[in-house]
């Protein structure tokens, strides 16, 4: 693996080939907010809060820093008015589900987010997928998965696997940016209900 040099926020940063922009920035002490990122997991690029401006080979574009591989001579900006507007709006969209979540609160002030901008739908889940992916990629159990599509997407525990694995594990609870309220509720529901919560509703 060779070494590359890139510029992040006007600072020259050396990084290993194969690293992501996020990893390079963090190694240089430059902070980029993340919510769905986890070091042990594959880049997921779902929360979009880590977006940065990337200039490479004469082209400038917005991209998620958690997934973007570093390139020699790349120029990255992690702060701009445009990025602030994007991050603020994304936060506000997530706050509609979990207005009091601690991890979101930490960013609310920094980006001037208004927790009442959008209509509330308190599901206590921002669909970061940390529980789902941790269970699949690290624990290799797939006890908790995403079901349904679009605005109906939600996490769901497979009763059979959950009854065997979850109670002694619960490692996903600690990863949850919204205090695992939804995870705990759905796990309990899966373990106590007669039928599996895995059933798909027929399309409306």
């Amino acid at each position, binding site marked *: 693996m060779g070494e590359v040099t890139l510029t992040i926020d006007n600072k020259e940063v050396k990084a290993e080939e194969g690293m992501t922009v996020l990893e390079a920035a963090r190694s240089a002490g430059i902070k980029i907010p993340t919510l769905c990122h986890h070091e042990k997991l594959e880049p997921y690029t779902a929360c979009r809060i880590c977006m940065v401006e990337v200039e490479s080979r004469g082209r400038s574009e917005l991209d998620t820093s958690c997934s973007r591989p570093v390139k020699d001579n790349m120029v990255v900006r992690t702060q701009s008015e445009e990025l602030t507007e994007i991050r603020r*709006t994304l936060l506000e969209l997530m706050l509609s589900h979990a207005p009091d979540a601690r991890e979101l609160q930490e960013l609310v002030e920094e980006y001037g987010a208004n927790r009442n901008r*959008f209509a509330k739908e308190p599901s206590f889940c921002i*669909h970061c997928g940390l529980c789902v992916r941790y269970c699949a990629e690290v624990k290799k159990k797939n006890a908790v998965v995403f079901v349904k599509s*679009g*605005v109906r*997407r939600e996490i769901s525990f497979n009763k059979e696997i959950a009854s065997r694995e979850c109670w002694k594990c619960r490692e996903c609870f600690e990863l949850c940016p919204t205090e695992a309220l939804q995870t705990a509720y759905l796990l309990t529901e899966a373990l106590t209900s007669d039928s599996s919560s895995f059933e798909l509703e027929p399309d409306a």
Partner: protein
Amino acid sequence: MPLIKSPEELEKVREEILSRRDPHKLCISVCAGASCLASGAGEVIAAFKAELEKQNINADVDTKGSGCPGFCEQGPVVVIHPEEICYLQVTPDDAGEIISQTIVGKKPVERLLYTDPDTGNKVVKMNDIPFYKNQVRHLIGNNIKIDPKSIDDYLAQGGYAALAKAMHEMSPEQVIEEVKESGLRGRSGSGFPAGRKWEFCRNSEDEHKYVICNCHEGDPGSYADRRLTEGNPHNVLEGIIIGAYAIGAQDAFVFVGDEFPQTVENMRLAIKQAEEYGFLGKDILGSGFDLTVRISIDGGGYVLGESTALMASMEGRIGEPKTKYDHATDRGLWAKPTVLNNLQTWANVPLIINNGAAWFRQTGTDGSTGTRVFSITGKIKNSGMIEVPMGMSLKEVIYDIGGGTVTDKKFKAIQVGGPLGGFVPESQLDVQVDYDQMTDAGLAMGPGLIVADESTCIVDMVKYFLTFLAHESCGKCTPCRDGIRQMLHILNNITAGRGNKGDLELLELISTVQKKAALCALGQGASDPLLSTLKHFREEYEAHIEEKRCPAGVCKALGAVSSGANV
């Protein structure tokens, strides 16, 4: 049927098929497209057969369930060859009269002919009907002569000659050069030059390469792609085989949904027939080139039209888009170099090889060559599948082909490109069917055109598209999933009389962020219907919010008395 091993053998087979056919023999073609079948075309065909038998002339007259000729509004469509007398909205009860009057008596049945709404004149021949006359039908013109279940019909029309030419007179590089020279751009919407994509893939080092034909047509109200494939499957298949030869792919897939059973059935049969004749399999036409084509049934979700989601689904994984930094032509399906093209792109390939790039370029504009097949629906007189030359204005499409709005109600807008496309108001109908002009106008080159008249509520129609996307988004990324949720919430309020000052600005904020931040093209384009209507029909939104009034009289909560059904 013996395996055809050379171009000479192919021509011999073709001559043999033609020698068995008398070009002057009468043939009753009944459209057997899904739309006409739903209107009773199957019963019409049966009635013709029974009637011919009854009158004891079944040896003198052929009957055929044909590919869709397009005039779906007026189906079942019946065309009598060789004169091409065209009858519309034919029922089984009409079979007797058509046979005694036209087949035996050589006179048209006046009441079943097309009536020109302006002059009241009857039009006898298919190609004299304005709907057909004003199209350029390179891809679908032969449909009415072809039974999509008969490879012999396709061969009788010159089928697979382009394949023989490509394999025996041209190197793969020459095929790519010809396609590049033709200016053919991908018909999926993005319009990437097909020849260049093929070249990238051919030059990729990995020897195992794949070709995918995308028949996944998910836009609500759009049916051009499936009708084209089901109506002339061998045309699409021939294009795929030529492309695979040029690219050097050993495996090809047709990605199509179970919700189009007719398309799946006809394509499956076409593949089987092509294998039997030697157009697929080992050593195709004695060229030494091998190819297998398989059908890959999609999971039915709209988002599977996105290339990374499509390939994930084909690989048996969840059909969700993924951020990727490799081109599919380097690392695509199963991490192998892959060319993914829309079925309309493939269907054009035999035309280019047969007639040459220069011929192909004669149709269209400098930047967009050839034709485009659309379905046109909504409040339009002549709805159906149409093929228009690139460069034709939307005004010509609507009035010269579509015949204008369905009643005398005033035209309001045409929606181009489905849930990820935009609306065009009357003042901008000079926009041409052209990739660059459409992109500039905020439109996507999707296969569906939907016409709205003054009885259509624009806010309600945008709400319809967003409701569709609320279910069809995969739900993975925040700006798409939650952006759509909030946009829909605001629109629901507006149409229910609960709109507030500032709603439109909030909608614009969500749209802007969604466009910049969403993971894939679905999220990035989800606000296009909304943004284009906020630009062109803002006063209609304002009437809903400020005056609590729906100008089209659709939104029930605002006092509308009509049914409210819009799309």
